[in-house]
């Protein structure tokens, strides 16, 4: 019996300690709504990342709740009113930083992609005018075929969407529609791959001394045969 009582008391004490600790963690020291708002505003002005913004927003929320509990709704509203603009501005700044990072990442991948493409072109096998024209034509045909498949898939998606509306958007049909749309995305990325192959081919052909007509991707009427010296240099890296 004694043991049981001690066990219950021990658990109760443990729960009390945990609750007290969690309260201490989330507790904020209140001064006045104006002073606390100034603190939040100062922090919001120095925001440089989304994580920082989130932690400041969390802190502001803690103040709001604390004002509501300790004083009244008016003090909480006053604090919210004072901090609202600064937090909104910080959020806008975060969005701008996010957009800028995206832009920088796009530039980086364009830079790396261009260098890799050039490397692939330099490593390309020796191309004659016929070989080049044939490969380009083949790629154009591949693109045409994929485009036809995309058109067909889009028509099927349209028909399926109509059925989906009639059926009242059941989950299995929505999933099927998602799969169909994924198929189109895959076809589109296939086109990008083929286009990239064609670009590498064109650069490789140019590097080997071939002339490329700008209007269409076919070679000029009487293209120069690539110099034998350059062919040997382009073949070297692939060996």
């Amino acid at each position, binding site marked *: 019996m004694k043991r049981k009582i001690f066990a219950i008391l021990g658990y109760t004490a443990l729960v009390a300690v945990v609750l007290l600790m969690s309260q201490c963690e989330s507790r904020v020291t209140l001064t006045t709504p104006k002073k606390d708002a100034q603190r939040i505003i100062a922090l919001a002005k120095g925001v440089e990342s989304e994580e920082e913004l989130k932690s400041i927003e969390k802190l502001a929320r803690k103040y709001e709740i604390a004002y509501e509990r300790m004083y009244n709704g008016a003090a909480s509203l006053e604090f919210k009113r004072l901090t609202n603009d600064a937090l909104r501005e910080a959020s806008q700044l975060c969005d701008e930083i996010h957009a800028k990072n995206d832009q920088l990442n796009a530039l980086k991948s364009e830079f790396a992609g261009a260098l890799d493409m*050039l490397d692939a072109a330099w490593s390309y096998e020796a191309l004659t005018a016929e070989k080049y024209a044939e490969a380009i034509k083949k790629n154009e045909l591949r693109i045409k075929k994929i485009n036809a498949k995309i058109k067909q898939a889009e028509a099927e998606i349209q028909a399926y969407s109509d059925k989906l509306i009639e059926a009242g958007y059941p989950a299995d049909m929505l999933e099927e529609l998602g799969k169909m749309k994924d198929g189109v995305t895959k076809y589109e990325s296939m086109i990008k791959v083929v286009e990239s192959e064609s670009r590498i081919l*064109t650069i490789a052909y140019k590097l080997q001394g071939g002339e490329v007509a700008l209007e269409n991707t076919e070679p000029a009427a009487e293209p120069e045969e690539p110099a034998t010296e350059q062919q040997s240099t382009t073949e070297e890296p692939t060996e």
Partner: protein
Amino acid sequence: MKRLFILCAVALASVACADRGPAVEISADDALGVAYDKSVELATAVAEAKSYEEFVAARAELEKYEEAMRTQIGGEDYEIFLQSANEVLSNIK
């Protein structure tokens, strides 16, 4: 045993230093010049290489400056560096 350790250390050091060349250091004063002019100069060397070996060397030099700009300068100057280089490199396509 001691000799073996020394040999291993020398081998490791030589592997670490191989093909790297001297690191590029860019001061804040030079950053704008590197971003606008040096990037174009280096990218042009890549684009106009006459052999694969020349291309590889020019690419390595361009990437060395890109890394230096990214790690030492960053910000808008680094963005300009990439934009200028990309413009030259995309013209080959």
